[in-house]
């Protein structure tokens, strides 16, 4: 049960959402956009999330798009993970999101919610980083389009008052050879100790990770090494490990040494799965 009182609004247009948000801000209230609610409800219960005003954006039609338009797949921020799996547009994204939480939760968890999660995993972002997805963001100056890397990079997220409307991926990037590997502490359901998604585009290997550092990442330096055909695969992996952009996490799910061990294997498996680098 959530012990604190908060005001709850349902917006039906982006404009309305923004007005509600600005009104709350003007009154100096802590305000938050709300989508599937799985994180807000469970965190608010434990005192790890707090808001005086909550604006539900799930009824905004723009946030519920799930279609291909002019060579671009549009995924609304309010689309649930299960809806993405059922739609069948984007195999790699499906592989990734169907391993997030459990089936019942995926009926509620939205892709926008996953990308904006307080937790460090945000695994839905992995395919988007690889596909150079664009985000449609609605903020103070109206709509803007930004590459996903620019918005969610390291600990960076959306700016105060901004709202993710859609995720846009060029259709040419949807069906590329791809693989996703997720290693958990033990159970199939669980947070990743290491998870990684990879694709082959223009004969180049692209790879992005979650669970390894404090936030998911795709690194140009790592990809350059992994594509260096003058090196043996084990040499590439060894070198790539030295380019991990940050401290390797150590927590209840696994030590940093174990994560390193898994990272090596996951990369080996990625080469094997994609049949490249021979």
């Amino acid at each position, binding site marked *: *049960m959530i012990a604190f009182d908060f005001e709850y609004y349902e917006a039906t247009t982006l404009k309305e959402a923004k007005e509600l948000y600005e009104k709350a801000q003007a009154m100096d209230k802590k305000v938050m956009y709300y989508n599937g609610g799985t994180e807000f409800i469970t965190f608010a*219960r434990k005192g790890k999330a707090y808001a005086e005003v909550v604006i539900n954006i799930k009824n905004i039609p723009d946030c519920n798009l799930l279609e291909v338009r002019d060579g671009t797949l549009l995924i609304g921020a309010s689309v649930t993970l299960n809806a993405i799996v059922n739609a069948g547009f984007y195999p790699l994204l499906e592989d990734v999101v169907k391993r997030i939480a459990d089936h019942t939760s995926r009926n509620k968890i939205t892709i926008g919610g996953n990308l904006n999660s307080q937790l460090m995993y945000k695994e839905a972002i992995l395919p988007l980083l690889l596909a150079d997805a664009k985000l449609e963001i609605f903020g103070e100056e109206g709509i803007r389009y930004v590459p996903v890397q620019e918005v969610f990079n390291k600990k960076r997220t959306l700016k105060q008052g901004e709202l993710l409307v859609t995720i846009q991926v060029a259709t040419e990037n949807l069906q590329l050879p791809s693989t996703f590997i997720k290693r958990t502490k033990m*159970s*199939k359901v*669980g947070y990743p100790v290491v998870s990684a998604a990879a694709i082959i585009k223009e004969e180049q290997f692209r790879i992005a990770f979650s669970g390894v550092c404090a936030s998911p990442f795709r690194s140009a330096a790592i990809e350059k090494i992994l594509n260096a055909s003058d090196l043996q695969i084990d040499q590439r992996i060894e070198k790539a490990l030295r380019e991990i952009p940050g401290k390797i996490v150590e927590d209840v799910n696994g030590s940093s040494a*174990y994560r390193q061990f898994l990272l090596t294997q996951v990369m080996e498996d990625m080469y094997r799965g994609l049949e490249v680098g021979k």
Partner: protein
Amino acid sequence: MEQTERTSVGQPEQRIDAVEKAAGKVKFTDDYQAPGMLHAKLVTSTEAHAYLQSVETAAAWKVPGVRAIITGETFPFHIGPILADRPPLAYEKVRYIGEPVAIIVADSDYQAKQAASKVVVTYKKLPIVHNVQQAFEASAPVIHNDLGEYTKIIGNVYPVAGTNIASRIKIRKGDFGTAWKNCTETISETYSFNLSDHVALETRSARVEINPAGKVIVHACTQSPFTIKKVFNQFFNLDVGSVIVHIPMVGGAFGGKGTVQLEPLAYLASKAVGGRLVKLTLSREEDMTTAPCRIGFDATIKLGVDHNGKLLAGQYTFLIDSGAYSDQAAGITRAAALDCTGPYHIPNVWCDSYCMYTNHPFATSFRGYGHPELTFAVERTMDKLAKNLNMCPIELREINTILPGHTSPTQAVITKNNIGDAQKCIALAKERIAWEEGERLVGENGKVRAKGLSLFWKTSTTATNAQAGAILTFEADGKVNLNCAAIELGQGTKTVLGQIVAEKLKMKLEDIHVTMEVNTQSDPHQWRTVASSTTFLAGRAVYAAAENAIGQLKKTASTVLQCAEEDLEVGGGRVYLKPDPTFGVEIKELALGYKFPNGHSIGGQIVGVGKHIQRHLTPMDKNTGFGKPGPWWSVGVQAVEVEIDERDFTYKILKAVTVLDGGTIINPMTATQQMRGGMYMGLSYAAIEKFVFDHNEEVENNDLRQYGTLRYGEQPEQYTVDFIETPAADGPYGARGIGEYGVIGAPAALANSLSNALQVELNELPLVPEYLWKMKKERRQ
């Protein structure tokens, strides 16, 4: 007991609570709402060890709806089931993170929770005791300064004042020192596992009101309703009869609901608001760390054999992490000692079992009562000893198995009746796991398939006067109501007890109405629903009640039928003449007294009353452990086959086998399911479950986001369960208790199979891939 053909006992009858549960209509304790009911919420400690300097409640009082705030000064006394060492609300000192410090009572639950967050507690930190080894050191901070003055509630608890030893239990059998010197091969091994949680689906909940007549009415999800009455009597100075405890069906307990923790708090809360009805339900997080958990366990085992591999001597040192309070951990300390050898005949035994205080959440009973832990240590050692001796691990077990004529570590005599047939269990388990195919094979997929096995035993250390009673009343249609205080925890006890009555009265199970709820005012006293004792104790009581009813039926019928009672038989809803079954009278004619055609009536209603009390149990001698602690030892064998990828250490449990000698099995379906559930629980514990503590001794994984358990779909692909049914002469229809047994050998069997697979000795839990990787890596270096 009689040997005739049985109609209900031995049949896979459908559980009588199945429909109601499948329909989702069962109301558990917390489901109950009533107008005017108040809600309580706990303020809990954020320090593991500290003096309470102040508890500021002014801000909390400002929250609308707050009716009362109760702090430790309200009741500065200690309670506990074995050693009274725990104030219901922390008083002067806190000893673990999560300990109740204050109670808020408010009109609604969110107000209580809001107010709880506004209580400001000021602590003066004390040095923390992080683990049992540290607790054992002479220089360790002392957690209970008044240990020497605490009241012993029951016997066989030996606290050592000025230390962190809540109890020390000694077993001295034979002459260990001399025997050890004569051994041709010896082994010494150390094991360690952390505290963990019960994870019952239903979190703990209690409601209390004090009515204007002074009756205290408690509703609770508990395994110990009569203990609640006893505690209220002892500590709140209430008449035992003024405390009425109601228990609906309980949503899983596993020993965790044996402790009396919430009920006294809810009573104090109700008292503070003039006796109004107050509900106190724990959140999942509180259920994991405020309420008691499972013990941690450190064991050192030394075994010595002669040149034939016969065990001559065994030495056992157990350090049990009881957390901040001793609760049932003090009893587990004793239970682990008295069964320390496992089901093996060892003439010379030396055991020191210590219940140690640390600044962890406190521990209580958990299905198996220390036996899964001690079995892990014993059975891992047996496997390693077999390896050192170059013997087949099963053969080593076979030649050392305990048999009638031997004695237990406490020198209780093992007889044909009080032990099952371990040899038969071993033989069948070997077959079920296909041991002869090989212990370790590399499959075509490159993965290793390996097997591991564990013997186990357990006697239930009930109170020496543990007992149960039952009442049978009859309806006008001749059908029967069964009332007794055995609690339905999901284990199926009410179905099994109904079957015993149905069998004895030769009626159908559907004609026995078993009252699912327990009410201490109308149900006869029963010790507790713990220790796998209910089929035995309550089973004997309901059997006796049925016998008693039969006597009454025959007496009235003998007048009606004008014959001797000895000539009559009861069955099929009738009382009839043995030589001529067509000549008889229907039970419905007798149920409420028999009325002759002229209106004269005789006999009165049939009320069957039955009871059973443990016989010839004794406490243990303080210096040697000598005594007869329990009514029987059930023995069994469990085995596991795993398939592991040696590259990344992920594994799958292909097969899990249980062979148990449980005496007569009353219901093979529910018994099989209980074994499967037990194995699942033991495998989950062994594979993944563990509280992870940070440096302040706060549980980091105190919710189900982070605390892992095996999930549906991760159970073994194949579960086989077999029963050897050596009848127990004492038990109802020859049955023994089996509730806990499925869990006991599973952790050891899993660890043995993985140790075989990886050829590395695994001495700790849980067996997550990271731990396997780490052990293998250390081995390589």
